[in-house]
């Protein structure tokens, strides 16, 4: 039985088991039908031209974990930003772990989606926001059909969340292969501020395929910083679809750090509904072996006087492959726009590949849109300069790669996270940089 067939037949059993989430029951039925019609995306589709899911779809995934697994905090401490106090929403094999989590309902809700779907008091929020910005793409529909668990974050107007929120999904390897469908809903009220860090972490070599969907709503003057850490094992694959709806004067940044995993596909979609929105999309990708990362971004400018800034840097070694497909869509009313897109890539090995495709579709006549894309090797003159100062070839390469990726880190607003990412980069490059990070 193909994975698609297995999912569709599993859905019937799943439906029986879900009694409690009536507000979205119809959505689920609609979503599974959409998935059934569209199926998994193939390379024939323009948006999937350079990323094939075929090898992932051959695995015999469990759709639901058979048993609950528990893990000790000390074993996974390193995956948290443990130097600072944070809210934590933690899932182990797709199941909420109250033991590892630190949630709150005091003046805001930082908790789980299953609670929000089952309790009446959350019904108005669910009805207003759930699945309202997510699009009817087949994988998103698949998630909607099965989504039962994930983070639920609701920040009321004028609330500044004083601690970062960590959303962490662990996979223990309790199943031979597992498919997960986490679903996050983030609603940030007027003039409210929040910082969120999301991570998917496999703890064993058993294959896992995560099909994650996150919806983010930024109300007027909301300020959101979202950080995605993708540094998983070579057995783990991730399809991450994030949809962001911005109202006027809101600022929303997403930083994506892609350092590890078998296959990662990031669908990052912004929709600017109000004036004076600012959307910031940044990424650092450092790959080796046969890793594959595909960044598929969309910034849809609907209202005038907005800005968007995209800056993605990639370093590709061995036989790794990268894709950057960045689309900026400007509707005719989105005048006085300033949209900037930059994508720079370095190929370390002759066998590494990058496919970069910037796309601008502009229907307004008074806008400023710029894009730049480079693909190259490390600068030989710079290498000679560093080596002539006594710095060995390997260190010199590392220093240049570090320098290349560095400006993307400047906008990371959590110092401990910035330090952590710096260390991950140093480790990924495989040398100690020899100076304070």
């Amino acid at each position, binding site marked *: 039985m193909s994975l698609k067939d297995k999912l569709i037949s599993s859905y019937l059993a799943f439906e029986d088991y879900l009694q409690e989430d009536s507000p979205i029951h119809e959505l689920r039925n609609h979503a599974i039908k959409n998935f059934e019609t569209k199926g998994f995306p193939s390379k024939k589709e323009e948006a999937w031209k350079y990323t094939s899911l075929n090898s992932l779809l051959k695995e015999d995934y469990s759709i639901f974990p058979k048993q609950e697994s528990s893990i000790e905090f000390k074993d996974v401490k390193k995956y948290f930003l443990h130097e600072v106090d944070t809210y934590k929403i933690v899932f182990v094999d797709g199941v909420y772990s109250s033991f590892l989590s630190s949630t709150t309902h005091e003046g805001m809700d930082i908790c789980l989606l299953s609670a929000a779907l089952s309790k009446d008091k959350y019904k108005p929020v669910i009805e207003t926001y759930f699945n309202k910005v997510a699009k009817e793409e087949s994988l998103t529909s698949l998630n909607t059909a099965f989504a039962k668990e994930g983070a639920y974050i609701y920040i009321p107007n004028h609330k500044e969340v004083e601690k970062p929120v960590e959303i962490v999904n662990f996979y223990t390897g309790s199943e031979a292969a597992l498919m997960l469908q986490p679903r996050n809903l983030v609603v940030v009220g007027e003039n409210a501020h929040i910082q969120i860090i999301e991570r998917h972490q496999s703890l064993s070599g058993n294959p896992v395929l995560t099909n994650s969907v996150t919806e983010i709503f930024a109300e007027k003057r909301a300020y959101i910083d979202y950080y995605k850490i993708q540094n998983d094992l070579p057995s783990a694959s991730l399809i991450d679809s994030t949809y962001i709806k911005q109202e006027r004067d809101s600022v929303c940044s997403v930083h994506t750090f892609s350092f590890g995993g078998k296959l990662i596909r990031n669908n990052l979609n912004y929709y600017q509904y109000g004036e004076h929105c600012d959307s910031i999309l940044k990424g650092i990708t450092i790959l080796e072996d046969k890793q594959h990362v595909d960044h598929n971004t969309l910034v849809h400018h609907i209202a005038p006087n907005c800005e968007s800034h995209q800056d993605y840097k990639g370093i590709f070694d061995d036989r790794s492959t990268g894709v950057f497909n960045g689309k900026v869509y400007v509707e005719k009313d989105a005048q006085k726009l300033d949209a900037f897109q930059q994508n720079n890539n370095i190929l370390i090995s002759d066998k590494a590949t990058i496919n970069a495709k910037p796309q601008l579709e502009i229907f307004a006549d008074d806008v400023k849109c710029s894009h730049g894309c480079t693909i190259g090797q490390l600068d030989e003159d710079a290498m*000679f300069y560093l080596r*002539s*100062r*006594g*710095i*060995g070839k390997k260190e*010199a390469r590392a*220093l240049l790669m570090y320098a290349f990726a560095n400006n993307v880190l400047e906008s990371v607003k959590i110092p401990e996270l910035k330090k952590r990412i710096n260390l991950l980069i140093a480790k990924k490059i495989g040398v100690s940089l*020899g100076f304070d990070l």
Partner: protein
Amino acid sequence: MLQIKNLHASVEDKDILKGIDLHVKPGEVHAIMGPNGSGKSTFASVIAGNEDFDVTQGDVLLDGEDINELDPEERAHKGIFLSFQYPVEIPGVTVTNFIKTAINETRKAQGMEDMPAGEMLKKIKEKADLLDIDRKFLSRSLNEGFSGGEKKRNEIFQMAMMEPKLAILDETDSGLDIDALKIVANGVNKLRSPENAVIVITHYQRLLDYIVPDFVHVLLDGKIVKSGTKELAYELEEKGYDWIKEEVKA
């Protein structure tokens, strides 16, 4: 200290250096002058080990050891320093962190421990003062957004920190106003000792008023065609290079 015998070098099969002989002893300052395209910068790059150039003939000996096959970093570890004509910008790496890395990598290669942090700071402070460098400058990204003068001063700062046996200054005077030139020259002079040597590569005599050479060599079409003392530099300043070209032809 440095002995160069019949050095030939080419890039992409184009001969640039066509048989250079030069002997530099400890404590000496040699100036290499010549018109554009005569091979001055290539000469500096080749001595520092730039792999873009192929050494096709000849020997380069440092303290009697053939260094032709050594990597640039190995030459640096042996005490060769090149002050670049066009220093490279390295965003995200501060001047301080860069020099720390350079010094500790060199010490590691020499079998030494990292320089203690306190000693490093003291040295950085001392050398920055010597070159009239503002502390704020040290925490900026290496060469990024630096003016021409700042870049050159930073090169000499690195030289002061590394304390090389043989320093090669490639067009260090270009892009400097007279005040900056004096500061840089003064810095170089303070670093001179009976044990080390300096090769100054320049187009103009101006810098040589401040860093006074023991010998002046004229490089023309990849060969040293004339050598003399500092008076030769004045003669070149006055008369240009044409008379030497005539002399060589004759």
